[in-house]
């Protein structure tokens, strides 16, 4: 399938979906409106709401807050994950001691931590950052840990025979290997950073997309809820696009499917 063809089909899915949504919320089928606008709003109202948000500039503040929270959560969570991942992978005894606690913390649904973070860190951005960090940290940690442990023994032996010191091994072998594992989970961890931020906002805050959605829901403004969801979706797609660009730049050495030579 050619690129323009694919794009055309992708757009068609959206057009059909929105058209169906509009039709079912506006025109009665057998004298009954299948999707009552009170619960499902309709595309025109939602579009109106989005236009108003952008025209008045209200949305920028909320977008900025959510972006700041997600970015901070991602950076801090990744940093911690890389650090602890490296440490545990190089110190198997430490890893063994902490193993049950790591498993326990990872199994805990992070949403229950939100009230505690709000108590500790207040209603500002840091309680949301903390929630995002707990999500991002474990993904990055597990990947880096795996990446350092699963360096090919042949490559490692080769590095040693080429005269690498422990520090050079870290820089030329363990670090790139861990990085490639971390980047393979980059989409997931960035996604979780956004989840942490939005869920945190939803549970108690004064700004952000989660706050916007929660406010609209509080007054049964379904159009507002949908509008918030669409803005959030667009926001995530833009971030995902940026991540893909970074990934392509940094993992240029990795074979892509259909690209490998025998």
């Amino acid at each position: 399938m050619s690129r323009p063809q694919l794009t055309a089909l992708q757009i068609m899915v959206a057009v059909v979906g929105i058209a169906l949504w509009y039709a079912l919320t506006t025109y009665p089928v057998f004298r009954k409106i299948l999707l009552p606008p009170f619960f499902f709003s309709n595309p025109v109202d939602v579009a109106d709401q989005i236009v108003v948000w952008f025209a008045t500039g209200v949305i920028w503040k909320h977008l900025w807050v959510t972006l700041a929270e997600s970015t901070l959560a991602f950076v801090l969570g990744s940093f911690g994950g890389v650090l602890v991942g490296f440490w545990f992978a190089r110190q198997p005894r430490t890893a063994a001691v902490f193993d049950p606690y790591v498993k326990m913390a990872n199994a805990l649904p992070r949403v229950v931590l939100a009230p505690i973070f709000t108590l500790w860190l207040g209603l500002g951005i840091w309680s949301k950052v903390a929630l995002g960090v707990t999500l991002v940290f474990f993904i990055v940690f597990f990947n880096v840990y795996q990446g350092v442990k699963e360096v090919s023994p042949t490559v490692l032996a080769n590095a040693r025979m080429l005269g690498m010191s422990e520090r050079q091994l870290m820089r030329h072998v363990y670090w790139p290997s861990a990085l490639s594992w971390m980047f393979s989970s980059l989409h997931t961890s960035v996604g979780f950073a956004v989840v942490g931020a939005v869920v945190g906002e939803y549970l108690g805050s004064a700004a952000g997309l989660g706050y916007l959605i929660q406010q609209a829901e509080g007054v049964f403004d379904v159009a507002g809820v949908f509008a918030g969801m669409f803005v959030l979706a667009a926001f995530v797609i833009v971030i995902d696009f940026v991540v893909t660009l970074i990934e392509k730049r940094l993992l240029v050495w990795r074979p892509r499917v259909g690209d490998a030579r025998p």
Partner: protein
Amino acid sequence: MADSAIAKPTPASAVALSDVSIAFRLAGGGTYTAVERTELTVADGEFVAIVGPTGCGKSTLLNIAAGLIAPSSGRVDIFGSTLGALNRQAGYLFQADALFPWKTALENVAIGLETAGTPSGDARARAQSWLTRVGLGSFGDRYPHMLSGGQRKRVGLAQVLIRDPKILLMDEPFGPLDAQTRQIMGNLLLDLWSADRKAVLFVTHDLEEAIALSDRVVIMSAGPAAHIIGDWKVPLARPRDIGEIKLDHAFHELHRDIWHTLKAEVTKGYVQTEGG
């Protein structure tokens, strides 16, 4: 056994394994003796090939000479001094892919110099000239996955040789390659080696390759408790062309001679292990 008065280790030997045994602890308890009481010397500038059936511990011997694993008993001397840690005088060409996948061909070759403290610019210039010597002058910016198996081996060869090791250890380096590429790589290796004769310990399961390349062919018995069962000098003139030398009469004589012993010994060993 052939007339192989195995030389006692002398200070002149590049590699001297004396009475080396290696045993691994098995998961279910007990030990597995891979190599037993082996004596092997490689003189400086000598090209020695070790041939033996798969799993006979050839690679283990090589790893011992490299200092990657320590022998359970016995001693390893490198140019007269006992080896206690990694063998800093040796370069090792591995059987499996050992290039750094996240480095380009040029970076892969340059890294061995950079670790030794050579400035990056200098290291890269020398790496480029080495890539040219192995016939990959215009492939410096390719990553390993963009190269064919033979090209990766060429990069590997340059990566090892750029450090100018006194001893070259090779573990079935051309094993995964097709017959034509093997022959080309063999000739390339002989070319590079003849420039400054290093001591080479070359492990292979291919007797023809061993005779065509080396000065001496050492035959190992099948494991467990593998040991050396024969040691032949190769009386073929150099420089050699691997394709042509296989048509030589002396080559055939030697091949038949070695194969006769190798086959008999391996069969004997097989019967012994089966019977015991």
